[in-house]
């Protein structure tokens, strides 16, 4: 019984570690891409020569897209 529980616990630890490491390995690239896209979005918004409020709205949309990208990929 003890051996089974120990094995189960060890498996849980290994699986959790693997998942966390995999997630960590993916996260910086994904978040980096989100920020790259956000940078392009901002450049696009600022280059449009739109009025101030319109530019602000475009930048806000870029910001919302960044948040969604970070949260949901």
């Amino acid at each position: 019984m003890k051996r089974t529980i120990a094995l189960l616990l060890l498996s849980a630890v290994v699986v959790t570690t693997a998942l966390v490491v995999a997630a960590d390995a993916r996260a910086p690239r994904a978040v980096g891409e989100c920020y790259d896209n956000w940078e392009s979005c901002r450049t696009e918004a600022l280059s449009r020569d739109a009025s101030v409020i319109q530019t602000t709205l475009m930048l806000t949309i870029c910001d919302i897209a960044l948040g969604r990208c970070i949260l949901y990929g």
Partner: protein
Amino acid sequence: MSTKRFVALFASWFWLLGQGLGAHDSPQPSWPRYRALDIKKDFATDERAMFARPVHLAFMDGRLTAVDAEEATVSVFDAQGNFIVKVGGRGQGPAELDFPTAAWPGADGILVSDGRRRRVVRFDERGQAREAFRLAFAPESILPLAGDRVLVARNPGVPDKTSTILNCYDRWGRPLWARLPPAVSGDRVADTMSNVVILLGGSDDEIFVVFRYRAAGIRRFAADGRDLGEIRLERGYPVRRVKKTVGPGSTFEADVFCWHASFRAGRFYLLAADWTDERDLGPGSEVYVAGTDGQVQGVIELPGKMTKIAASPDLLYAIDTDYRLRVLEVEKE
């Protein structure tokens, strides 16, 4: 009237007076007024003087450059506005651009910043890319400095302790100095707006940084990066404030120092933002000419609303709201 009420009334009167004095669109002194007139009528039908999305206009060493971000090209004209050459074009090749953000003509070629490809390219006058260097960020603007140095402006998205707006490199892209920490308030949209700059080069290799969306708009730097302080414009110069309710109890406010700017022979040419029909601020039709002491020397009325301007010793160049290049001569009214 009780003493308390009298004091409150007295204080509020002073507060109101203060507000009035500090208002951004305060009455203007009687500055001399000039009128700018088109001298190149054939531009009305010349496709080479029309752009899809002009993002930068600059005059230097007898040449004018206009950057079109949509077409990913830089058009070069002589001082009279005669077309010379168009460089770039969208692509990933050495002589191609993806999203040019600024360009300056010079004796040593045409210097271009490419936002998406994160690089600075120097073209010769035949449109061949002579040299380029890569950057770790998307360049917002550039300014060539003496000694083949290049100043690159960055609008940092997520500012950290090391990010700076001004970044100076030698011609091979080796960093020389970095200055001017960006505005950081936690509001990314407001920060992005606050950190939008126009780079202008003055005489004696001085650098002027014009903040489009800050009330105190001009900062002065030496060529080696020393901060020489702020230039305050004379009272009456129209820094305009746009205000909009963006949600319940939430208001957006922004000061607009100018819509675009140029610098020539010790004078700033500041294109003031103008009100749109929706009470927003956009391109303007008045250029305020000011010295480096901040004193306004005159106002030039343009023949319509313009989005970009550049000044040469004799003429004024502008891109209008139909994205057409205009060559203007200034005459006193």
